[in-house]
């Protein structure tokens, strides 16, 4: 396979076409896009999306790429933000066949390629799972033997993104664990509540070693989990984070 070189292609605006819209949860929708001449990407990177109104007014937002670099389509998962400016348009208004301007791939830090090795420890809060899912999809697509553990934190079971796919990927060196912070279904056997040191110890996170850690989620989640890992002995420099705040997306 040709080696992807995401850095070489200038980040020009491209007109993509929505191929498919996939509801993920009550509030999250995946847009599957055809992007002409997509230069390829690394798992963990994001794209900028630009909307233009008829009078020329524009709005831009960033969204993490959910699809693996091996996927012929580019997928982004949008969490619909109530009274947001861009996300409700993307989840409610945009329909298959519509065009959407985007550019990318962006960011060379919060990325993972199977060649980077592992083991991987991925911690995702809410839609912070999206770039981590690209890593897991990449790992699966190239049948990588890198050991990976993912801790998914969501409000409730129905808020977990990619639930069926995650359970089908579980095994073969991948461990998927969940903690539900607000509500648990009857006979719930996963964890409940905010991520704590006990959960991280059970995941083996107290044996820091050469683990590559990626944390993505709302600011409070990332601050909390990163602090716990530093207290457990992880080198702060080996912890990559991506935070998002409650802004008007």
């Amino acid at each position: 396979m040709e080696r992807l070189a995401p850095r070489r292609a200038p980040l020009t605006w491209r007109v993509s076409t929505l191929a498919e819209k996939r509801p993920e949860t009550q509030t999250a929708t995946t847009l599957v896009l055809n992007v002409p001449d997509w230069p390829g990407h690394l798992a963990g990177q994001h794209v900028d999306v630009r909307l233009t109104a008829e009078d020329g007014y524009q709005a831009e937002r960033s969204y993490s790429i959910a699809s693996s670099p091996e996927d012929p389509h580019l997928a982004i998962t949008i969490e619909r933000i109530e009274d947001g400016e861009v996300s409700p348009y993307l989840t409610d208004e945009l329909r298959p066949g519509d065009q959407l301007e985007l550019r990318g791939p962006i960011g060379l830090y919060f990325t993972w390629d199977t060649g980077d090795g592992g083991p991987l420890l991925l911690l995702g809060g809410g839609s912070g799972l999206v770039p981590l899912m690209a890593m897991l999809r990449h790992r699966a697509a190239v049948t990588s033997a890198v050991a990976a553990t993912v801790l998914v934190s969501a409000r409730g079971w129905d808020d977990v993104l990619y639930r069926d796919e995650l359970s089908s990927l579980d095994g073969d060196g991948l461990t998927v664990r969940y903690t539900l912070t607000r509500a648990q279904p009857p006979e719930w056997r996963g964890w409940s509540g905010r991520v704590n040191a006990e959960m991280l110890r059970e995941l083996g996170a107290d044996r820091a070693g050469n683990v590559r850690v990626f944390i993505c989620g709302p600011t409070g989640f990332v601050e909390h989990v990163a602090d716990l890992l530093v207290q457990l002995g992880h080198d702060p420099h080996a912890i990559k984070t991506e935070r998002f705040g409650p802004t008007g997306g």
Partner: protein
Amino acid sequence: MSPLISRGFGGRRRRDVDPSRIPPGQYVTDDFPVLSAGPTPTVDLDDWTFTINGAVDEPATWSWDEFQALPNEQITTDIHCVTKWSKLGTPWRGVSVDTLLENVETAADFVLASSYGGYTTNLPLADVTDGQAWVACEYDGQPLEPIHGGPARMLVPHLYFWKSAKWVRGLQLLDHDEPGFWETNGYHNHGDPWKEQRYWSD
């Protein structure tokens, strides 16, 4: 290429903000998002120092108490993050970089700001002098919180906010440009929001 009109997109212009204060592609937020590449470092004020070194006749170092005794200014300014949010009229208190360089002899053209935690960002010297940059220790009348870069961060509001290094510990003066953390990770070397210099190829 002229931009594609997005079918059915009206947009939501904020009528309470002056559009001439919003750089292209930015939107105004009222909260204060946090973006950092790693865990938030904790810096004990007893151990905190700020150093100016590199291509200077004599390096200078201040302890926290010495730094607090320097003349400082109240700055109210708009800030622009490369992740698209802008925040208008943010109130800071800090020491002007002009004050810090007052007694420094240098032929340098660039600075590299370094932070506790290992972050770096590069700037032309001309972008941090003449009342354009500060080392800020207070936000909105309060000591700067660690998540926003406390105890002290750079404030270079005319450039995208990643240039305003959080947890700053010093400025190294250089005769050559040395790209910092985000500048080597796909982001623009200069970062002028009015020219929308977000990424390396912009």
